[in-house]
């Protein structure tokens, strides 16, 4: 796999989508973004975990909690699969964290986390901890794995402005389904403090699993 700038190579990339209350989603979004509603009053929380083995920030693990938002679609441009606003990110290394903050303006937990993966015949279970304190437990189940390439819009925001990056995800294997077999446990923690945990479903309505892939960031665009 040839390397290029803004590229992060991973062995496992898991992302599950959960229903959450729209009023809670609005609290987590900056003013210029609206939550994408799955159903009335029901928005979408994305829980993503990556096990990076190479790339700009070297090997590290990452947890990303995002709210799904409408993408920016324009004539002649490739349609994205989805758009999201990461409201908190945590990594297992300082390098991963500093690059995420400086280069991609992503809000981070300022400590290293630990992610333990446990793969079974039909699922991947994982547990995220912060210095021994549980953050969340996630189980993603398998469907068929096929090669794929997907485009996402990621929105970021800080005190100086609002930004967007196109993220291309390519994987040798990608599995996606809505069989409602996975599970999520959110623990009381700094990362989940903004979430009304009682209103977040404990079963993902969509499960996505990419293996042996690369996450490629386009240069950050400043939104006017």
């Amino acid at each position, binding site marked *: 796999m040839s390397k290029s700038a803004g590229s992060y190579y991973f062995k496992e990339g898991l992302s599950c989508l959960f229903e959450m209350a729209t009023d809670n989603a609005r609290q987590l979004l900056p003013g210029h973004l609206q939550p994408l509603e799955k159903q009335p009053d029901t928005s979408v929380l994305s829980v993503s975990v990556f096990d990076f083995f190479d790339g700009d920030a070297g090997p590290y693990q990452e947890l990303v909690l995002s709210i799904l938002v409408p993408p920016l679609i324009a004539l002649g441009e490739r349609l994205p699969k989805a758009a999201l606003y990461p409201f908190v990110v945590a990594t297992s290394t300082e390098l991963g964290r500093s690059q995420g903050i400086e280069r991609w303006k992503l809000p981070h937990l300022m400590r290293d986390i630990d992610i333990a993966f446990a793969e079974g015949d039909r699922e991947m279970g994982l547990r995220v901890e912060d210095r021994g304190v549980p953050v969340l437990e996630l189980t993603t189940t398998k469907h068929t794995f096929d090669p794929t390439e997907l485009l996402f819009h990621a929105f970021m925001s800080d005190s100086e402005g609002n930004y967007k990056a196109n993220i291309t995800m*390519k994987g040798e294997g990608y599995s996606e389904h809505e069989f409602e077999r996975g599970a999520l446990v959110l623990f009381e923690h700094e990362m989940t403090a903004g979430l009304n945990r009682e209103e977040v479903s404990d079963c993902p*309505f969509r499960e996505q699993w990419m293996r042996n892939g690369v996450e490629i960031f386009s240069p950050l665009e400043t939104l006017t």
Partner: protein
Amino acid sequence: MDDKHAAGKTGQGMFADKAGKPLPLAMQYDYTNFYFGSGNDPFDMLGPFDEWWKDAEPAGYYLYGLPMQGEPRTRVDIRNTKTGKIHKDLLNFASYNYLGLSYRPEVKEAVASAAELYGNGASGSPILSGSMEVHVELSEELARFKNKEAVLLFPTGYSVNVGVIAGLMRSGDLIVADQYAHASLVDGMILSKATSRFFRHNKVEDLERKLKKFSGKKLVLVEGVYSMDGDVAVLPDIVDVCKRYGARILIDEAHSTFIYGQNGRGVAEHFGLEDEIDLHVGTFSKSLGGQGGFLAGSQQLINYLRGFSRSRFFSCGLSPVVTAGILKALEIFEAEPELRDRLWSNVEYMQKTLREAGVPVGQSESQVIPILIQDDARIFEIGEQLLQQGIYLNPVQYPAVPKHKSRFRMSISATHSRQELSEAADIISKVLEKYGICPSQPAAITSKRG
């Protein structure tokens, strides 16, 4: 992209299927991709959508809304809008004319007589000049049939749910619906401005979770038979939870009235829970083969909603012509219980035949039988194959159903002959076998009646 990834790439930089066959560009997107667009002009989205539609329509979307050339009988002629060809004598499993009443000679005679007496339309809102004797007669007959104090007629099934929910619930109230609730129920929730929540399909523990932390006015929305899966609401458990938390219940029996229950009053009758349900919704477009819908309930409820159901108040009344046809269809339904016997016999036969052939039909217990294809990218291709082989079935794909749960929704009618059912099962299983979908693991037979 490196060589390994390129294995899945087509000339357009997109996907291929497992066999390496490129998928049409259009199949990589669906309606959900065009809901939001950038720019300040609401028409900005039309260009990207049109660009997609030019590929999507010939790639399979043309299979929706193919013009039928006559009555929705068990065999129909359909015009293929892609080729212009008329497909003759297709076996029709797409129409929900469950009892074959839409084209009964007696119904057509009643329709003709009503046209002679009333003309075509009601020419007014039902609350003003759009109520005619035939509407009153149908309301009274339906109230008697449903064993309820009163009935309110609506111009469509959709408008019943929208009008009733928004007419009753207010901002600050809570509405909890099954996640598979029909769009009309969902739109009623939106219009009401009440807080909306959804519970996982038929999972009462999730319903309880949603209800227990809320104090205030609560309404729970369920369907009798779910229109995409053909399974039945777990009504006893739902009623139990709702009673414990003081929630009112609306049941939409669009696909179960005139089919379930000893007298055909629906799933609520089937479970002996008619008095526990507060709002009974039904339609005329399914088993009675007409158009429109109704709410049955207490006289007080009907009195109130007559003034607050805006979808009825601000629509023209049901056409008196259609109303007369529905009235006659109801009369036939009650006079010919053998119609339902024949339907259930056909349902049991078809469920058994399909399951034995290994056709995946999910958990259906009713005349709505999903043929589960799962492969979202191939459903249209399979639909075309079925059309070529003489079967008319509508594909259903994401977002109408979850991802990888694409299916054909098969509607069984009392008027299908055994030979037609057998022929269809044979064609379906052979086409699905070609795609590696059939035979699946045979499942238990679960169809049941009142």
